[in-house]
C-alpha cells in the first residue's frame, strides 16, 4: 500500500496545540508537542519503527500500553525506548533502531 494512502492518519478537527520539530533518522519531521514518539512516527507513515536483531524483521506497534516492548526506538543515545509512552521533545533525535543483540555467532 503506497505511503500516500498512509497520509492523513491524524483525525481531522482535533486541536493539537503547538507543532514541534523532531528528527527521525536524521530527517526533520513535523510533530506536535502533545505527541508520543509513536504517534509522531505513525502519523508520518513510518510504521516499521525498528528491525529485529536475529531475523531483521520490521516491527511497529502492538499493545500500545507499554507492556510488549515492541515499539522500540533509539532516542538520542538510549536504545530500546518504548515509543508509545515517550513524549516528543523539540529537536529530539529519534532513530529507528536495528535491535541490538545476537551479533556473535551462536
Amino acid at each position, binding site marked *: 500500500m503506497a505511503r500516500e494512502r498512509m497520509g492523513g492518519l491524524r483525525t481531522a478537527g482535533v486541536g493539537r496545540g503547538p507543532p514541534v520539530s523532531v528528527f527521525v533518522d536524521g530527517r526533520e519531521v513535523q510533530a506536535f508537542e502533545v505527541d508520543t514518539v509513536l504517534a509522531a512516527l505513525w502519523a508520518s507513515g513510518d510504521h516499521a519503527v525498528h528491525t529485529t*536483531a536475529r531475523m531483521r524483521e520490521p516491527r511497529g506497534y502492538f499493545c500500545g500500553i507499554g507492556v510488549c516492548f515492541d515499539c522500540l526506538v533509539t532516542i538520542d*543515545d*538510549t*536504545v*530500546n525506548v518504548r515509543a508509545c509512552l515517550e513524549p516528543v521533545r523539540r529537536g529530539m533525535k529519534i532513530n529507528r533502531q536495528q*535491535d*541490538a*543483540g*545476537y*551479533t*556473535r*555467532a*551462536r
Partner: protein
Amino acid sequence: MRTADVCIVGGGLIGTATAYYAARAGLKVVLVEERELASGTSGVAFGGVSLAIYSYASARVPSSYVELSKTSLSLYERAQQEIGSPLDLDAPGSIDPFYNEEDSARGLERARGLQACGVPVEFIDYKQIKEIEPAVAPIAIKAIYCPVDAHVTPMGVVWAFTKAAKQMGAEFLTYTKAKRLISHGDRVTGVVTTAGEVAADTVVCASGSGIPALAAGVGVEVPLDLARGQMFVTERIPPLLRTYVHNIKQTPSGTIVFGTTREPGVKDTTVTSVEGTHKMLKWASSLVPALAKVKLLRSWAGLRLLPPDGYPIIGRPKGVDGLLLAVLHRGVTLAPAVGKILTDLMTEGKTPHDISPYRLERFAPGAVGAEAQETFYGT
C-alpha cells in the same frame, strides 16, 4: 527397580557432565534430579571458565588446581566441537580488575604464581586495560589479563551435556528425589528415589547443597558452607564488552550479566534485595560507566557451594565403596574435568589427574563454617 552402572544424583553441571563422559565411556547411566535440570547453583552461575582463579587466602597457586582448570578448558573445547549448541563456549579472554594497591599487590603475586604454572596471564595497568576493554573505567588500576579464558551459559552447558548423554543412552529422571542411599556393609549399592529404587555399581553424589544430607545417611560427613549470591542481567545492547571482566560479561545474545553479592549464611534464593541490587549496580556502573543508560531486566539469587578451604571435594570417601562425591565452587570452570575424573575412577579405578588435594579426609570433623566465604577471590 532400575539397574545401572552408575546412578548420578543431581542434574547440574557436575551431574550432567559426568553423565556425558560416563555414557561416552560405555557405562549405563541413570541420573536423578529432584527438580528441573540446572535448577540449583548451576542455573544461576555467572559462567566464567577461567584459568586465572584459585584460592585467594593462600596466595599460593596449587599447581594441581591450575592443571584441573586447564584440562577442563580443553575438554570444553572438545565438547564444543562434538556437541555444539547450546554449549556455546566463547573464549574472548578475561580481565580480573583490582581497585586498590593492596589487592593489586596480591594480584601480582597470583599472576606470577599462575605464570609459573604455565598459565598465559599478564599483569597489566589501566592503560593496557583500556586498550583491551575500552568500556572499563580507571577505577580498575591494575588487572590480571588472561587471553585464553572463556565463558559459557551454564544452563546451556547442562542442556548440551544432557542432550548428548541421552543420545548415548543415558536416562534422565527429573522431578525425582533421591531419598537415601542404599548400602550393604560399607558398600553403597544404589539409591532410593521417589520413582523407585535404582541399583548401581557406583553412586555419584553431585547434588550440590543436597550432598551433606545424602552422604550423612551412610555416615559420611561433608562439610559445606553456603553463601547466597545475587546476580543481574540487563536488556540486550550493542557490543560493549569484548572479554569478560570478573564478574561482568556480555552474553552471545547481547545482554550484560553481572554480580555477585557474597552473603554468607544467607540461604533464601527466592528473593533478591534492594541493598544487593544497589551495591552491584553501583559497582558495575562505576567499572563500566556506559551502563548508566542501560536498563536492568532481572535479578536472581543462587547459592555458592563452599567447602571449608575453598577447594573442591572430589572422589571416593574413605571407608565407603561404590560412592563418589563431587562438590565445588567454580563448578562452571571445572565441570568437564570433574566429569572426566569421576568417569576415570569408575572405569579404571584411578585417574591421571592429581586429585589428592581434594579428598574429603583433609577436613577434620566439624570443619564447617571455617572462613569458607573469604577464601575465594572476588566471587
